[in-house]
């Protein structure tokens, strides 16, 4: 009896020994870090990113994982970057010291990204970011930062380009512009872009003012706007201020043209709170769900539908960028054929993505310059129609007709 038991165990042991290496290889995973704010006022942004990450990882692993590493599965390590630079640094240090990650996506906000960047450089881990600050993509950033979003100044530029387009198309004759921006890095970066181009386009900037974060009342802003005699308003706002500004303008019965600066003007909350009244609202965005490169590619538009189904809202800007960013990271790992982050970094620097998940980012190809900036990306202009933002400009990516504002 015992003898048979023993030999059975021996048999099992042999099987295990023989199968183990194969099993180990199949169980191979590649870790990537996703470090974004998941608590505090910016948690909502972090959540969009994490949702998209899950979809991206699902798709990448479903398609066979990292084939150059034997089909290794991508494993996202998700961590809360918190709201302040100290928390971001500590979290980055923790994740990078305790795990062997091949790359990272984060930290969504420019101050957090700037603060944590030295940790990434030190650990030789490349980080793909949706933060827009121009100061992130400078020659002295250490070479480990890859900005998949358009630069803040590009944002602002696009808003003015679009105004020029509207002016021409509808003969609006707008010459006086007001710029109101939330006093944080996002607002200041975008404002710079607006101001530069507005000047060059020969517009008169009748108001150019920062306002404090977390306002609970926009009526002084609206007063200032009306007093300035502006014909177009370029507001750059987060969620609550965007709503307060728009409703404030409506209360004052203002028919000013508003060209929003992204963030609060394009994410789901404004659509939910304004209902039908959001239709017609125009804004710039880093990414939109129905740009040509997404709509024309059934796999990608399928992703946006799955997002809607899984999370109850249309796929917002930060989610689309994250999907693209994670896919680009995976493509780099694939190209490097290694999970050594330094090699992944080199692969990212040389990468030229024209398909797959990375093509989610308009115009459908991604390449980084020597400072880490995305060379092909253009900000899109969206207009809310039927409760969802639609891409209306530039022509290369537009899929919807503008409704006259």
């Amino acid at each position, binding site marked *: 009896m015992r003898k048979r038991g023993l030999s059975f165990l021996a048999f099992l042991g042999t099987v295990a020994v023989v199968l183990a290496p194969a099993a180990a290889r199949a169980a191979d995973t590649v870790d990537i870090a996703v470090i974004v704010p*998941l608590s505090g*006022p910016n948690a909502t942004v972090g959540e969009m990113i994490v949702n998209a990450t899950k979809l991206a990882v699902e798709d990448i692993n479903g398609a066979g994982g990292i084939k150059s590493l034997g089909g290794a599965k991508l494993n996202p390590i998700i961590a809360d970057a918190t709201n302040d630079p100290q928390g971001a640094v500590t979290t980055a240090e923790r994740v990078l010291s305790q795990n062997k990650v091949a790359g990272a996506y984060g930290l969504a906000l420019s101050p957090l990204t700037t603060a944590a960047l030295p940790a990434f450089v030190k650990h030789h881990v490349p980080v793909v970011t949706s933060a827009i600050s121009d100061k992130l993509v400078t020659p002295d950033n250490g070479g480990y930062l890859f900005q998949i979003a358009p630069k803040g100044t590009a944002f602002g530029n696009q808003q003015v380009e679009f105004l020029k387009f509207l002016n021409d198309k509808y003969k609006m004759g707008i010459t006086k512009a007001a710029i109101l921006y939330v006093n944080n890095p996002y607002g200041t970066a975008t404002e710079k872009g607006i101001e530069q181009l507005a000047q060059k386009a020969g517009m008169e900037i009748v108001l150019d003012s920062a*306002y404090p974060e977390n306002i609970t009342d926009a009526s002084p802003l609206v*007063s200032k706007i009306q007093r300035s005699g502006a014909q177009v308003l370029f507001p750059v706002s987060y969620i*609550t201020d965007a709503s307060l500004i728009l409703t404030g303008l409506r209360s004052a019965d203002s028919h000013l043209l508003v060209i929003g600066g992204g963030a609060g003007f394009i994410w789901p909350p404004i659509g939910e*709170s304004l209902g039908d009244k959001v239709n017609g609202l125009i804004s710039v965005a880093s990414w939109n769900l129905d740009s040509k490169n997404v709509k024309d590619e059934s796999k990608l538009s399928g992703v946006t539908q799955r997002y809607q189904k899984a999370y109850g809202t249309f796929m917002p800007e930060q989610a689309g960028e994250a999907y693209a960013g994670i896919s680009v990271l995976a493509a780099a790992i694939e190209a490097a054929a290694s999970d050594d982050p330094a090699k992944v970094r080199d692969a990212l620097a040389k990468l030229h993505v024209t398909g797959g998940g990375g093509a989610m980012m308009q115009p459908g190809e991604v390449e980084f310059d020597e400072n880490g900036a995305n060379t092909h990306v253009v900000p899109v202009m969206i207009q809310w129609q039927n409760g969802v933002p639609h891409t209306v400009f530039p022509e290369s990516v537009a899929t919807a007709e503008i409704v006259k504002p």
Partner: protein
Amino acid sequence: MIIFLQSILNGLLIGGVYALVAMGLNLMFGVMKLVNFAHGEFLMAGMYVAVGLASLGTLPGAFGMFGIYWVAIPTMFVMAAVGLAFYLLLLDRAARFGESPQILLTIGLSIGAQGLAQVLRGSGFKLVPNPINGAAIRFGGLNLQLGPAIAFIVALAATIVMAWVLRATRFGKSARAVAESAETAEMLGIDARRVYIVSTSIAIGLVGLAAALLIPYQYTFPNVGQNFVVVAFLAIVIAGLGNVVGAVFGGLLMGVMQSLTASYFDLDLSTAAIYLLFLAVLLLRPQGLFTRGRRTL
């Protein structure tokens, strides 16, 4: 001229909102000498309750655009119950602590509550679409935003009611006695603990009322309390800590100040202006602008 009037009007409206938020805070301080740093989070909790109720539906027909305000009454009662629990579970014991631990307790509660809100209701920004949001009354060249205007009216009404309660009811008189000196009041047969319990419930109930008036035009999210609480503190100190009626004027003053500086100077200095006004009042007339000497309630 129109601009000046509009600024004043805007200031009064936003000030009314601050006053409504501050009222409960002031009651707690007046009676219990407790500075509740978690006040903003009670506001936030009230907003979540109100938004939850509002998403169930609004009153139809005759109420027209005001249909959403039915949530005010249930929210007040729910929050009063929360206030009761707050007192019985935490403050009852903490009454014996020194000032520093009490403040620390409310700070910890504030941090924890923000986290709890995110755990329970997520980080999303909620605003139930309703006709009040963006609606305004226009006359002359001026416009009155409906949301803040209604909050202003309710703030005034609540102040009148509170003033009456404090002056005419037995509870009110007991509360004033305890506010002036808890020891003396006890000696005279007043159950200070009962006063504390009722005051806390009323105070948090008032916060619930404020919350219900905010939800038609303000987003509800876990950290929303932080945007209101500091100004509420400033308002009550300016009015005179413990001065429940004066808190309204404190709030109005802050609102007008904020509005005027924003309208005529740089927008991003308007916050500095409020704090500077506050510091000026504190240093020149620390008992508050709207108290007569050493009045406590």
